[in-house]
C-alpha cells in the first residue's frame, strides 16, 4: 500500500514536472527560516548569516567543511602579539561599482560594533579591536587590546559593506534594498517579507560565477508545505528535509537528496550540581536526592539509549551517533573516545548499584520547534529510559519558552543541542561545560551547573593557543575529560538534508546553510 502510494505520487509528479515551466536559468529555493533583516551586521544568528553570504562577503570565510579560507582578505599576518596585518584581495568591486578597499574594512568593522537595536550584535566579534589603520588601499592594520589568537575566526563572521553608505545608514535601508550593496555573488532584487527574497547574479563577482542568472529564495516554515512545494514542482531545492519524507523522496527518480553530518550536537542535559533536582520524583512521589550527581546513573542513562534505532526510526537516518561534542573530522574531535554502547542490562545494573533499583520519576524537558523532530526524539528517548525502569514524563514547549526556563535552571533533565558552526569545539565546550563565570564568558550555556577545574584549565590553554595543533591537543583533552565524567549524555550529530530536482547539484555545508551559488545544474544548456 505504501509503495503504491509512493508510486502514485511519483507518477503525478512526473506529469506535474512535465507541465511546469522550464525556469531558464532561474533557480527557486525554499528554505525553512527567514532572516529578520538584509542588513548583514544586524544579527549574528545563522539564518541572517546564510542570507548575507549571498550578497556580502567576509574577509575570511568557511568552506563547506567549515575550514577557514581567504575571501576578501588574502592573508593575515601576525605582526606582534597585539597587531595583525591583513592583505586585501585586489580588483574586487561592490555591486554599485565602487572598488573594495581598506576604508571599507575599517568602516564595516567599526559599524559592526554599534548597529542600533541589534538583538544579536557583532560587537563581541570586534570587541578586542583597539584601533585600525589603512596602511595602503589593500592593507589594513588591526591592533587589539589583548592577545587575540581567535581574531581571524571572529572576523570570518563580519560582512563587508561599502564605506560610502556612511555612518548613518539604517537597517531599514538595507531591508528595502537601497543599502543592500555587497561584493557577494548575488545582487539584491527585492525582499517580500514572509514570502521570498529575489536575487540576480553578480556578473562581476571575484570568485566563481554562479551558474544561474536569477535565484528566488522562498521562506516556507512549514515542513509539509516546503516538501509539497518541491513535490509539486514549485521550487527546485529545499533545505531541512523532514526525516519523515526521506524514505519517500529516496524512491523518487525525479529527486535527489543531499546530506551531510553537521556540527549540531544533540545531548541530554543533566543537573549535576544541586541536591534537589527539580525534575525528579522518587517512586513514592516526593522530590529527593539528585540521582544525576552519581556518575553511575549518568552512565546508566547513556547506556539505556539505542542511538542507532533512534536515528533510524525517528530521524530516518538523519543523524550520526555521538560520543562527544564534535563530529569526526573537526577540530577538537578525539578519535580515542569509545562509542557509547546500547546496553539496557548494564544500565539497569548501574542504576541498582547507584541505589535506584526501582528507578525514579523524572520529567524530560524538550523544545518542540528547535531541532529535527526534537519532541519526537525526546519521547523516543523517554520510552527507552522507561525500559530501564524510570518513569518518564515529557514536557515539550516552544524554544522561546524552553530557553529562559533552561537558563533559569528549572530543568533537571532536558534535551538540547549546540552547533559548533566555527568548526572547532572551543566555544561549545566553554559555553556548555565550562564553569559559570560571566567575566570570562565561560559557562554561558551551562544549564546543568557542571564545574570541573581541570576541564576549565584545558579550555583556558586552548583559548590562548596560537597554533591549531596546540588548540587541538587541548580541546581533545577536554573532550576526553567530558566523556569520562559525562556531565551531559551525547545523543547524535544531526545530519542535514537537502532535496533537489535530479538535474541539480549541491555542495552541502556542515553548518546547514543553503547557498544558491553552491547549486549547479547538470544540464549545460540551462
Amino acid at each position: 500500500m505504501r509503495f503504491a502510494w509512493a508510486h502514485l505520487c511519483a507518477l503525478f509528479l512526473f506529469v506535474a514536472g512535465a507541465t511546469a515551466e522550464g525556469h531558464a536559468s532561474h533557480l527557486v529555493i525554499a528554505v525553512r527560516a527567514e532572516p529578520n533583516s538584509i542588513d548583514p551586521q544586524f544579527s549574528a544568528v545563522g539564518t541572517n548569516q546564510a542570507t548575507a553570504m549571498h550578497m556580502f562577503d567576509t574577509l575570511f570565510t568557511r568552506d563547506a567543511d567549515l575550514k577557514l579560507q581567504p575571501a576578501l582578505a588574502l592573508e593575515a599576518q601576525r605582526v606582534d602579539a597585539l597587531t595583525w596585518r591583513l592583505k586585501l584581495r585586489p580588483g574586487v568591486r561592490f555591486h554599485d561599482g565602487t572598488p573594495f578597499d581598506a576604508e571599507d574594512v575599517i568602516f564595516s568593522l567599526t559599524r559592526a560594533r554599534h548597529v542600533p537595536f541589534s538583538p544579536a550584535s557583532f560587537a563581541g566579534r570586534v570587541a578586542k579591536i583597539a584601533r585600525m589603520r589603512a596602511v595602503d588601499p589593500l592593507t589594513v592594520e588591526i591592533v587589539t587590546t589583548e592577545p587575540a589568537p581567535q581574531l581571524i575566526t571572529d572576523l570570518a563572521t563580519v560582512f563587508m559593506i561599502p564605506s560610502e553608505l556612511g555612518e548613518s545608514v539604517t537597517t531599514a535601508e538595507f531591508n528595502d534594498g537601497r543599502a543592500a550593496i555587497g561584493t557577494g555573488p548575488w545582487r539584491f532584487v527585492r525582499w517580500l517579507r514572509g514570502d521570498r527574497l529575489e536575487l540576480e547574479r553578480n556578473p562581476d563577482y571575484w570568485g566563481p560565477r554562479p551558474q544561474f542568472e536569477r535565484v528566488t529564495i522562498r521562506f516556507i516554515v512549514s515542513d509539509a508545505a516546503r516538501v509539497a512545494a518541491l513535490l509539486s514542482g514549485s521550487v527546485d531545492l529545499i533545505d531541512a528535509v523532514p526525516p519523515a519524507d526521506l524514505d519517500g523522496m529516496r524512491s523518487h527518480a525525479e529527486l535527489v537528496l543531499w546530506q551531510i553530518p553537521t556540527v549540531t550536537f544533540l545531548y541530554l542535559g543533566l543537573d549535576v550540581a544541586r541536591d534537589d533536582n527539580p525534575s525528579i520524583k522518587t517512586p513514592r512521589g516526593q522530590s529527593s536526592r539528585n540521582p544525576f550527581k552519581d556518575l553511575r546513573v549518568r552512565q546508566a542513562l547513556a547506556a539505556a539509549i539505542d542511538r542507532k534505532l533512534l536515528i533510524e526510526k525517528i530521524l530516518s537516518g538523519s543523524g550520526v551517533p555521538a560520543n562527544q561534542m564534535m563530529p569526526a573530522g573537526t577540530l577538537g574531535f578525539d578519535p580515542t573516545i569509545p562509542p557509547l554502547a546500547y546496553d539496557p542490562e548494564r544500565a539497569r545494573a548501574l542504576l541498582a548499584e547507584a541505589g535506584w533499583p526501582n528507578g525514579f520519576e523524572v520529567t524530560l524537558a524538550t523544545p518542540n520547534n528547535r531541532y529535527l523532530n526534537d519532541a519526537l526524539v525526546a519521547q523516543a528517548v523517554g520510552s527507552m529510559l522507561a525500559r530501564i525502569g524510570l518513569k518518564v514524563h515529557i514536557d515539550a514547549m516552544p524554544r522561546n519558552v524552553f530557553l529562559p526556563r533552561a537558563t533559569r535552571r528549572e530543568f533537571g533533565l532536558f534535551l538540547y543541542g549546540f552547533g559548533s558552526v566555527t568548526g572547532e569545539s572551543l566555544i561549545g565546550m566553554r559555553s556548555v561545560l565550562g564553569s559559570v563565570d560571566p567575566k570570562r564568558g565561560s559557562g554561558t550555556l551551562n544549564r546543568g551547573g557542571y564545574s570541573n577545574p581541570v576541564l576549565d584549565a584545558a579550555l583556558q590553554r586552548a583559548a590562548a593557543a596560537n597554533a591549531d595543533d596546540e588548540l587541538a591537543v587541548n580541546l581533545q583533552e577536554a573532550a576526553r575529560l567530558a566523556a569520562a565524567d559525562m556531565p551531559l549524555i551525547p545523543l547524535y550529530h544531526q545530519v542535514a538534508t537537502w532535496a533537489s530536482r535530479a538535474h541539480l547539484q549541491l555542495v552541502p555545508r556542515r553548518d546547514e546553510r543553503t547557498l544558491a551559488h553552491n547549486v549547479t545544474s547538470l544540464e549545460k544548456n540551462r
Partner: protein
Amino acid sequence: MLAVLAAMSVIVFLGVFVIGDPVELLVNPEATQAEREAAIAALGLDQPVWRQYLSFLGDALRGDLGRSFVFNEPALQLVASRIPATLELALTAMAIALLFGIPLGVIAGTRPHSLIGRTIHGGAVLGFALPNFWQGLLLIMVFAVLLGWLPSGGRGETGTWFGIETSFATLDGLRHLVLPALNLALFKLSLIVRLTASSMQEALASDYIEFARAKGLRPRRILGVHALKNVMVPVVTVAGLEFGSLIAFAIVTETVFSWPGMGKLIIDSITVLDRPVIVAYLLLVVLMFMVINLIVDILYSAIDPRVQLAGSR
C-alpha cells in the same frame, strides 16, 4: 472602544511578558553577558514591566507602537505591510463563498427534500465538520502534490494596482491564490449555504409569499424577487460580520499555505514573542473589526428598509 484597545494592550503586554523572554531567542548563544545586557537594554527589556508599558502607551498615543524585536522596524508598519495579502485572500474567499453559497443555498432551500437539496445540505455539513487546517492540507495534497495543477503555497508573482501589491494582477498570482482562498472559503461557503437555505425555507413559508402566489405572480418572480430579497437581508449581514472572522481564520490558512499575510506574521511573532508586533496586530485587527461592524450596520440599513424603524418600537 478605546477602553477595549487599552485593555487588550495591557493583557497582551503582560501575557507575553509572562510566557518568555525574547532575548533568549534573539541573542546569539555565544554572546557574553555584557552583550546580552546590551541587547536587553537596546530592546528596553531591562525596565520593569509597568515602565515598559507606560513608555509603550506614551508612544502609542503618538501612533508609534514600537519596533519589532525581530525585524527592527516599526511594528505598525510591519503589520500594515501584510494587510493587502490577507485582505485579498479574505476578499477572494468571501467572493467564492457568496458566489457559490447563495445559489446552492437557494436550491437547497427551495427543494430541501430532493436529492440535490440533500446533497448540498450534506456537503455543507461536511464543510462545517472538516477542520480548516485539514481541509487545507488535503487541498495541497490533492491539487498541488497529486495533480500538480496549482502551486502548494506562497503568494506568487504580484503586480501593482493603484500602488498596492496584489496577486490579482498576474496570472501566477491568481494561480497561487486559488487554493488558499478556497480553503478559507469552504467554511464560510457552508455557512452561507445553510443560512441561505434556512432563510429561503422560512421565506417560502411566509404570508407574503402566499399572498404573492395569490396575486398570480410567476414562480420565478416569487422566488427571485420576493423570497430572495428577504433572504439577502440575513445573508448580507452575516457575510459582513463573518468577514472579520475570515481575516482571523486566515491565520490557519496562511500557516498552511505559507501565505505572507498578517495571520502568518502573528503566528510567527507569537513563536518568537515579538511583543510589539503582537500588540500592533491586535490593535489593528480591533480597529478593522470596528470598521467592518460599522460598514455592516450601514449596509444592513441600506438593504432592509425596516431597519430604521427597528429601533423604535
